[in-house]
Structures are given as structure tokens and as C-alpha cells.
């Protein structure tokens, strides 16, 4: 019991079982200790290692639980449990080979790690956590559209999907070309995979170029055409007088062609004469899943020693990142040039979400703020139906489900690459990104649960669970980047070259104790120290000048001048050393 003292339970969290166990730590060897399982987490603390080794794993991060060895297995610590986690680590526990010692813990783990497969509720529905902030109010679609200057004379808001009748995976509020009638929308709906019609995601304030997102057209083998769809895309083009609408198909062209066999396809030249189609060559969810699996193989438990770089290259993970980022750069560049674009892949909920949200992050500095980034995720990923439930497999025991894929992890990696290249352009820090990924799996918050808004409504998600943003916004300073220098209207173009892309070591290899986990980067630490020193000196100086008993009060204002020249005022400066 006292072992659990340093692990405070969450409100609503309940202990299920505790047990003496041996944790086979890949870094420090077999460690005797105690494991506690609650309805939220697995917690282990070693008994005799100094300093104590602890594990604190939300059950949601567990992807697979297996029995290892049998009652008759030979060798030390060969009988126990093997746990595969979704967050780039595996855990191994050994037990005594007597009296089915692992049966109860295996059953409990299996049940509580995969509650949905056992008729139980996800922890988010059991949590009693309370926060000062209500994260569910972060994103209000109408407010966000209004911020973008919408509706206007070219774009209107439609409530046609209020009951999810037009498209069950879209949000209720959509922005469409002003000239398109509700009837037009219904017709277009029949020609787009799963009814995901082109709708506006973002509009450029000055040149009125728009990013629209949708799914593939249902062209099929016979090369069907749909006049309504063709006209509808032309309305998008017309809205700001774009000469040629650019359609970015995120897929490699071969895949787009192959999709015709299953009724999908792409916009042909003949049918869409005022549009140009560009393939962005980003691979599908299965390729990405295998790529990350390979990456895990070379970093966990130990970092591949011989030919590290070649091994890294053979996972193709960074290459995929490069393709996604360069796709987004092309979208952002087109928009900056005043041309509207339509982005789609097959269904428009994986690669499309990556491209539109990254492009928006490059174009709109609002999304680089702490709250703006939350809005971006709520909007482009959550409300537009990225299938979080299927991609992550929350609470589901079927670890081999082919629908699982780390698309969102890949997106967050792309964001991290951008923050790395532009360390002063984002209000949030790396901690926020890691926190987001941790709770992508944890099931502690409702934020990333379910596939789409209609499912969230049915399950009363927003009234019964807490949002991740409640946690984040109640402690904003923890997620703040001290170097942040707001620069509105600046388009950020990261460099999508392998030369600048790097493996996100502090996420993917964070379990390895040899990768030094610094609470704060030394640069950040130094900066904060200097800021504190400056404030201290300013105060001293002020005091000194007060005690100077200066007859002229203007002296006082002079003394505070350096304060006025705070970092935001002079953005760059070349004269002091570094």
C-alpha cells in the first residue's frame, strides 16, 4: 500500500489487484517489485533497486497482452506476461511458476485493458476529474469560421448536415460555395466516397483562396462523370477567380488508378477542364503502420548500433514524413499564390487531414498558438472524422486489426519537425505534443474517442467525459514555449529535406534511459534563468533609483526602459554574441 503512495489515483480510478512480480527491465535487468492494476493504469514499483524503477502505464496504451512461457518452461523468469504497448515500448513481467500465479493478473489486465471487448466502459466515462477550464468549449465551429471572415458573399454556412443525413462522418456545420444550393450538395454527395463532399476548411483573408477537403470521386472502372460534381468544383474555383483549381490527390497515382476498380478514382482531365490534378505520392495507412513498426524494432529496447542511419532509412519513416510535409508545402504555396485548392485521398479522413491541417499550420499563425492548435485538431481531425477509434483501437482487444495505423502520430511528428525548424514560431512546446500523444492512447479524456461527431453525439461524449484541453488549459504555462515570438501573417515553409528531418528521439526513444531526458532543454533553461535575472536587476535598479531620491520623476520611467524592450519588440538582433 505504501508503495502506491507516490502514485495518486485519479478521481474515479479504482484499484483492482496488486501482486508481487518481477519486471524484466530491458535496461536494468530483472527487478523484483509490486504491480498494481487499476481500472485506469498499470503501476509497477521495484522493491530493491536504487533509485526505484517505476512504471506508470495507462491501460489504454496497452495494445496486446500475451502469456509468456508455460508452467514447465525452463530458465529463470521465463514464465509470465508479455505486454505490447502502443507507445513504442514492450513490457515483460515474470512470476513464480506455481499455482497458475499469472492467471488472475492476466485475466484482469486483459479485461481492463480492452474494456470495450468485455462490455465495460472506457475509463473516460468513469473518470470523475474536475478542472477549472472546460476543454469542450475550446472549439466552436461558427466562431472559428467567423474568425476566418466567414460567411461572406462567396461562401455560406449550411446546416444541411445537422442530423448527419448528408454525411454521417462530417460535422454538422459546413461551409460551401455561396452559389451551391442544398440540392446541389445532395447531388454531389452521391458522387463522392461516403458522401464526403468538398467543403471549405480554410480561407486566406487577403486573396480569398480556399482549402477545400473531400473524398475521392466515384469514377469507377467505366470512368463515370457527374455534371453536378464538375460544376460544384468550378464554383469553388470561381469564388476567388482562380484560373485553374488545383486538386491535390494525396495518393500515389498508381493507387488512385487502382481505386477505380473499387468504384473510386480521381478527377479526369476531360471532366474537370478548369482543374489540374497533382498526386502527392503519400502512402496508405498500412504502409505507415509497418513503417512505424520497423522503427520500433530499431529503437526498442536498444537503439540499433551498427549502421544506425541505414537502419533508420530502411524504416522509411522519415521519408513518409518528408512526403507529407512537402505535400503540405505545395498546398500552402498554392494558397499563398492566390489559387484555391481541393485536397482529397480515398476517404478524406487520413492523409487529407494531415495535409490540410499542416498547410493551415504553415499559413495561419493562429493555429500556432496553444489554443489555436487545439482548435486545429478539433476541427480538421476530430470534427471531420479521422477515425480515431479504428486507427488507435481504443479499448479493443483485436491488436491485429488492419484498420489501426499511426496516422495521427505521424501528423504530430510533422508538427514537431516544424517546431524544431522554427523554434520561435509556436506558442506551445514539445511537452504538449507528447501529452497529446500520451492521451491519444490513454482513454482518460474523451477528446480522441470515437470515429466521428455522430458517434460522439450518440454516446453523449461531451457531457459524460472530460476533454484533454481541460487538463492542458488549466496549466497552460507548463505547455508554453518561452521562445515564442508571435508573428502574424507569416507563412512558415519548413524544409522538407532529409538533411533537416530528424528522428523525434525524445518521443520514440524516450524509454531508453541513456537518451538523456532533460526536463528542460539547456537553451530553454538558460533563457528562463536570464529572464529571471533581468527582472531581478530591473527591480534592484528601480529600488536604487528610488532611494536616489531623484527629484525628477522621469528618472523612474527611464529606469524601466529595458523592460519595454522586451524580446517581442526586437525580433532579430545581430549584435550580441552567440
Amino acid at each position, binding site marked *: 500500500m505504501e508503495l502506491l503512495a507516490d502514485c495518486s489515483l485519479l478521481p474515479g480510478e479504482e484499484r483492482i489487484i496488486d501482486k508481487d512480480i518481477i519486471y524484466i527491465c530491458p535496461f536494468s535487468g530483472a527487478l523484483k517489485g509490486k504491480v498494481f492494476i487499476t481500472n485506469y493504469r498499470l503501476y509497477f514499483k521495484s522493491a530493491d533497486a536504487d533509485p526505484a524503477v517505476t512504471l506508470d502505464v495507462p491501460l489504454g496504451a496497452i495494445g496486446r497482452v500475451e502469456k509468456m512461457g508455460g508452467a514447465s518452461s525452463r530458465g529463470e523468469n521465463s514464465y509470465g506476461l508479455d505486454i505490447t504497448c502502443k507507445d513504442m515500448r514492450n513490457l515483460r513481467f515474470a512470476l513464480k511458476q506455481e499455482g497458475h500465479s499469472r492467471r488472475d493478473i492476466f485475466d484482469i489486465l486483459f479485461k481492463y485493458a480492452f474494456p470495450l471487448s468485455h462490455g465495460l466502459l472506457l475509463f473516460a466515462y468513469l473518470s470523475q476529474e474536475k478542472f477549472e477550464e472546460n476543454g469542450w468549449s475550446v472549439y466552436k465551429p461558427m466562431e472559428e469560421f467567423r474568425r476566418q471572415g466567414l460567411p461572406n458573399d462567396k461562401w455560406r454556412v449550411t446546416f444541411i448536415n445537422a442530423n448527419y443525413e448528408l454525411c454521417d462522418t462530417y460535422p454538422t456545420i459546413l461551409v460551401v460555395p455561396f452559389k451551391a444550393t442544398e440540392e446541389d450538395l445532395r447531388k454531389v454527395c452521391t458522387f463522392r466516397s461516403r458522401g464526403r463532399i468538398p467543403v471549405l476548411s480554410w480561407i486566406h483573408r487577403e486573396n480569398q483562396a480556399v482549402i477545400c477537403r473531400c473524398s475521392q470521386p466515384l469514377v469507377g472502372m467505366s470512368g463515370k462523370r457527374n455534371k453536378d460534381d464538375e460544376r460544384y468544383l468550378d464554383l469553388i474555383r470561381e469564388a476567388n477567380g482562380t484560373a485553374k483549381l488545383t486538386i491535390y490527390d494525396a495518393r500515389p497515382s498508381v*493507387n488512385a488508378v*487502382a481505386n477505380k476498380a473499387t468504384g473510386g478514382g480521381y478527377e479526369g482531365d476531360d471532366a474537370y477542364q478548369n482543374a489540374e490534378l497533382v498526386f502527392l*505520392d503519400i*502512402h496508405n495507412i*498500412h*504502409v505507415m503502420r509497418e513503417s512505424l513498426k520497423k522503427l520500433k524494432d530499431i529503437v526498442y529496447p536498444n*537503439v540499433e548500433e551498427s*549502421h*544506425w*542511419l*541505414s*537502419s*533508420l*532509412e530502411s524504416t*522509411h519513416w*522519415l*521519408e513518409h514524413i*518528408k512526403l507529407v510535409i512537402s505535400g503540405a508545402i505545395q498546398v500552402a*504555396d498554392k494558397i499563398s499564390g492566390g489559387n484555391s485548392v481541393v485536397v482529397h485521398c480515398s476517404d478524406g479522413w*487520413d492523409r487529407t487531414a494531415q495535409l490540410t491541417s499542416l498547410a493551415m499550420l504553415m499559413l495561419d499563425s493562429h493555429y500556432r498558438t496553444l489554443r489555436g492548435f487545439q482548435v486545429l485538431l478539433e476541427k480538421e481531425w476530430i470534427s471531420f472524422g479521422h*477515425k480515431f*477509434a479504428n486507427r488507435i483501437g481504443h479499448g*479493443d482487444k483485436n491488436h491485429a486489426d488492419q484498420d489501426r495505423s499511426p496516422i495521427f502520430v505521424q501528423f504530430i511528428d510533422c508538427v514537431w519537425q516544424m517546431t524544431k525548424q*522554427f*523554434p*520561435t514560431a509556436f506558442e506551445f512546446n514539445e511537452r504538449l505534443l507528447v501529452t497529446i500523444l500520451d492521451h491519444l492512447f490513454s482513454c482518460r479524456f474523451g477528446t480522441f474517442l*470515437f470515429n*466521428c461527431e*455522430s458517434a460522439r453525439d450518440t454516446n453523449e461524449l461531451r457531457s459524460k467525459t472530460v476533454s484533454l484541453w481541460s487538463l492542458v488549459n488549466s496549466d497552460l504555462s507548463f505547455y508554453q514555449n518561452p521562445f515564442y515570438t508571435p508573428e502574424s501573417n507569416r507563412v512558415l*515553409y519548413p*524544409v*522538407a*529535406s532529409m*538533411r*533537416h528531418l530528424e528522428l523525434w528521439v525524445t518521443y520514440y526513444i524516450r524509454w531508453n534511459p541513456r*537518451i538523456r531526458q532533460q526536463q528542460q532543454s*539547456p*537553451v530553454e533553461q*538558460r533563457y528562463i*534563468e536570464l*529572464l529571471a535575472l533581468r527582472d531581478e*536587476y530591473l527591480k534592484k*535598479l528601480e529600488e*536604487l533609483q528610488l532611494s*536616489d531620491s*531623484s527629484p*525628477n520623476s522621469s*528618472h523612474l520611467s*527611464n529606469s524601466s*526602459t529595458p523592460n519595454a*524592450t522586451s524580446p517581442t519588440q*526586437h*525580433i*532579430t*538582433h*545581430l*549584435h*550580441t*554574441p*552567440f
Partner: protein
Amino acid sequence: MLSSLGSAGGKSAKPSFVSYVTPEEIKSEKEPSRKEKHPDLLPGEVVFCSASTVLKYTQDDLSQRGVFGALLCTNFRVSFVSDEAPTEETGQLFKNKLYGENDIPLSCVDNIYGGYEDKKKLITGGLVKNKYPSKMIIHCKDLRVFQFSLSFSKEEDAKKIFQGIVHHCLEPKSLRCLFAFSYCENTSYPEVQRKKQTVMFDSVEDWIQDMKRTKGNCRVVSENSNFELSPKLPQFFIVPSNVSDEDLTKYQGKGLPMWCWSHHSGCALFKTASIPLVQEDNVPQTYMEKMLTAVAHNHLYSVKTEDLSDTLPAVQDILLSYNKFKQFFLIDNTTEFWMSDMKWFSSLDNCGWLDIIRQCLQKAVEVVECLEKENTNVLIMEEGGSDLCCVVSSLVQLMLDPYYRTLLGFQSLVQKEWVAGGHAFLDRSNHLHLKDKAESQSPVFLLFLECVWQLQQQHGPAFQFSETYLTVLSDSVHVPVFTTFLFNNDSHRDNILRAESPHTQRSPLNCPTVWDWSVQFDCKAQDLFTNPLYSEKPKQDTSVRKSYRPKHLRQLSLPSSAFKTPPKKGFFKDEADNLKKILGVKRLSRWMLSPSSESPQTSSSVREFYEAWQTKPLDYHGLLLPCLDGPSIRVWMQRYLRWIHDVQILGGGPVAMLSKVSEILGEVQELQRQLDRHGCTLTSNHKGARPRAKTASVIAARSSVRLSSSFPFVTSRNWLFKPAIPTSLLQSLMVTGMAGNLADREDDGGGPESLV
């Protein structure tokens, strides 16, 4: 631009004639008569040849755009002078006073290629027999790439300039032709007061001081001050106290353990040039044993030896690896760049450069472990004793001694280990293009800087100098002005400088060293050499440290090495027998093999050592160890990517963050000054306002330029840029080999959607 084609300007004033130019050069110097412009020549600089209406291609794109101007070759540089009126260079803060962005010091030319239509041919010197190429491509040692079109110039001029540049850049020449000599003769270069500056290790006092600083207890040898003992030995050096006078001169200094640094426990690091062991002759072995005994005697009768020739790559392999490595950065055009981007990681891996860096760092960590953990003396050796010995010994000192992580300390370290230590800078750089020295060329010093960069990258706040400082230092090796890099050893330097002196009887020629940074950069630019993250050690700490080291500490830290034996008589005899056996199989290496060879035991020992160190709180003024894991050893981005337009992160890069730190640092320092002033002049009421005015003007100057990741080497001029969009992407993904053809599958393979 083309309008200036025919405008032949007046003949410019001829530079003053200097007598040391060889006759053949005087001839070529007289011929070009229609010079239009030339750069501002340095003292002692003369123009050899020139051509007008040369087109310099804009480096960063494939289009055949460029700027017209004159191309010249002087005794210092290849220079391109644009016909266009010099635009107001904003942010030309980091200007090198010796050469500009369109100048290439002759020693900085790496390769010259002739461009014939679509082909590119490496020019290896000599007369170009057949057709003169219409295009000249110059790859520089600082990784710049220049492309000139000669097809708009007069054929005769084009030939002449091409031949001239090839001749002066690639043909063998004598040391006296290097620009340093004419430059120094023509500049009254003021003697700097070195006392407050870098310790040069050119006097016996410097050595004594350094030994005292580290509390070493060895013998200072000053008998070689006129190179009477041996020209191969440094002017001054330190050996174990048991080395006798006659030992000093045997084998021309080979086998003589040279003191590098003393650990506070009393053990020390020595280096030596190994003696080739001849089977029948027993003499070198006896001598070697005696020397080992002398080293062992320094502290606790323990010594470990390491032959770096056996365990680290040879200098030729270092060159081969670097030659492959640098090709990734010498980019002629955008297409080529993006092509090479596809296989970037594996190419990097295959050239082995990062692995060589890792091996050197690992070796240094092993030595550190011996000194720090086992408190045993270490003798590192290699043939010559002045290449990898210098790399390893300097790295060891950087890891153990915070003094060497200050700017002046680092410069002193280079003086001690490399300059006085007799690293053959001239042969290794082969500035003279001597055919018989081609074999000895190798970027060993650069390798050292690479290792330092890795350390600095991992432990930024521990270093007083910046990344920019290291980059500039690596460039300066190829600027033939500094005595630091022009010679092979002390006596070589002494001889030449004396012979070249204008006042034959008196002092040697007074040339600047690279540490005289004001020769290249003004004060503002030099500000960029210091690292804003560095925080000095609090003053009080030093006193604590002094008292913290009582003498009995030595006894407490008993060594665990195999060489530890009670100091009784007869031990050395046994030891010598033992050593004889070891020497007999010519493997002195007692404890390590390279990480690539099968020796998991030792590499895991290093890992344990690292892990033990890592669990302790990090003290930037204490022992520093590098992490050697794959992801931790990286490419020195600033040095290698600075000129490649497509990878410049505009408004980003680490500099964006560091400049903010500097900013605050500046403010804090200014406030400190104000506070100090207040302390002194509390009675005066009329100060206060002045610093404000100054700050304001500084701020005004700041905001005009936006930084890029290539700062300070390239300042971006226009901000309305197009992003670099990678080409050749599709081919890059080799997903075909993937099992089950995942790439061809549907994202959501049909079936009803399962909404939970």
C-alpha cells in the same frame, strides 16, 4: 548587365611590384592589360591574370542566370568582381576582412572542374591540351561552389584565366609562394600582448604554468630551444621525471613520452610516436620498456598504453571517408541536391565519416575512464605521434578540464597539442600541392573540430565558444595567412620565419596566428564567437574545489588496474618482462580495441562508465562525456549546409532561439553595468538616461535583417521566396519490396464501419 560588355575601363593602377614573385609569375602578371576592376587588394597582393565579362551563375538555381563581372587570379585568391554596382549589403555583419563572398583563397580551392556542354571533367593541373571548357566549376574547401561561364569573354582571356587559375591553385609551389609571406612583409603587424591571450606554448614558462595548473609533477625540457636535441622534437616539452638526458635524444624523439595533462589524482596522459620494432634488434624494446616504466612511475606505478594506429582509422582512411562525405554538400544544382536527398541517411552511413567521429570520441572516453575512474597513467601512441594522438589527447582534456572549454583555453589547447605538439599542418593540408605529399594529406584537424562540435552540440552550456567559432576556425585552415597552419613543426616554423625575415639578423618574420581574429573579423563579428548559453563558473566554486582536494585523496582512489602492484623492489623487472612479451607480439594495447572489432566487453565498459556518469546531476564545469548512440552523432549542419540554398530555413533554425538568448543576455549585461554604475556613483543623479539612448540605437539596427539557418554565413536578402519543393519524390520510396503489397491496398478495406 550585357550593356557593360564592351566598356573597357581605364587601366587601373598596377599593384606595387614585390620582388619575391618568381619570374614566371611576373611574366603572367604583366600580360593582362585591359583590366577593368579588381578587388581591394591586400598588402602584398598582386594580380596574376584576369578576364572580363565572365558570367558567375547564381548558385541556387538551375536556370542559366547570373551576374557578369571580371574574374581575377592573384597570389592570394581567385576573385570575381561583379560589374553591377555594389548594392548596399544589409546585414553584412559577418564580413571577413581578408576575402569576400566572391573570393576564394587559393588554398581554399579544392577541385576545379571544366564544364563542356553537359559533361563535367575534373581538372588535375597541367596544361589543358584540347578544348578549353566554356564553364569552370570550383569546389572550395569551405564547401562553397562557384560556377563561371567563360564563353562571353574573349577566347584568349578565357584561356589565360582558366590556365592561370588552374596553375596557381593546383600546381606544386614552394612554401615561400604562399601569400602569408608577402602579406606579412607588407603589413606592419603589431605584436599583440599575448600575456592576456592565448597561451602559445612557445616558451618554457607556458609549459611550467600549465603543468602547475594541473598539479603535474614531471620534468620540463628546455634543452631543445634551439633544436639542438632534435629538429623533430618541440622546442619545449615535458617528460616523466625519470627520463634521463640521454633518453631524450635516442630515436629522434620517437618513443619519448610527452606529457599532455595531469589528472587531479596525480596520474597523467602522455603521448608518443611509436618506435618501429625491428625483430632482431632488441634495443628499441629495452628503451620502450624504460620509457613505460618512467611513465608508470609518475603515479601509483600504473600505466595503460594504447596504440592508436591499431585501433583508429589511418590518416588515409580519414581522407577517403571525408572525400566521400563532402561530396554530399558540394552541390552543383537543385536537381542534384534533391536526388541525393533520397538516399541521404544510407549515403551518410556508407561514407563512414560519422563513424570515424564516433570512434575518436569513444577512444577519448576510454582514456578518460582510465584517468578518472582507475587513476592510471595513460600513454597513447601512433606512428608519428602527432595525428590521432593529438585528436584523442585534446578531446580527453576537453572532457576533463573545463578550462579548455573556454575560448582562450581552447585556443591554448590547440597550441599545446597541435601546434607545439607538432601536427604536420602543412603536409596534412597539402597547401603546396606537392605530388610526393599527396599521400600525407588528411583532414585530421577538421576531424578534431568535428568531435568538438559533437560535444558542444550535446552539452552546449559547457562551452564558451560557439558553433560559428568552430566553423570559422575550420575555414581559417585554408586561408594561407596564419602561421598556425603553415608548418609541420616547431623547427620548421622557426627556420622558415627566420629565413624570410626582412631584417636578417634580427627577429623572425612577424606573422599573425589564427588567434589574431581581428585580422579576419571586426569586434562585432567576433561577438558571434561566444556562446550565449555559456555561464561562467561561480567564483566561489574554485576556492571550494581547491580545498576539497586534500592529499590523502590519492590514497583513497586506489586503482583497480592490472598494473597495480605494491611498490617493492623487483617489481619493475617483472613488469619489464611482462612488457617485453607484450612488445614481442607488438600489441601494446592493454585495454581496448576499436568498437567495430569484436570486443563487446570493453565497449560495454565504456557504456557503463557513461551510464554511471549520466545518472549523476550534470555539472557543466565538471566531467563531460558524449553520448555515442546512433541518433546522437550528427552532421555539423552549420558548416556543411550553410551554402545550400534549398535547405536554408528562413526565419528558423537554432539561431532563432539562440539570438533570443543573446538578446536577453545583452539586456542583463547592460543592466549589470547600470547597477555597477549606480554602485559607484550613487551620489550623482544625472546618469540613468544615457544607456537608454545607446540601447535604442542598437535595437533599431537589429530589426532589419531576418535570420536563417545559415546565419551568419548567408544573410537572406529577399523574403518573398518560394519554398523549396522536393523533386523526385515518387522514385524515392521503395515500398515495392514490402510483404503483402501493402502499398496497393485500400485504406479501409470495405466492410461495414464499426462505430463503437
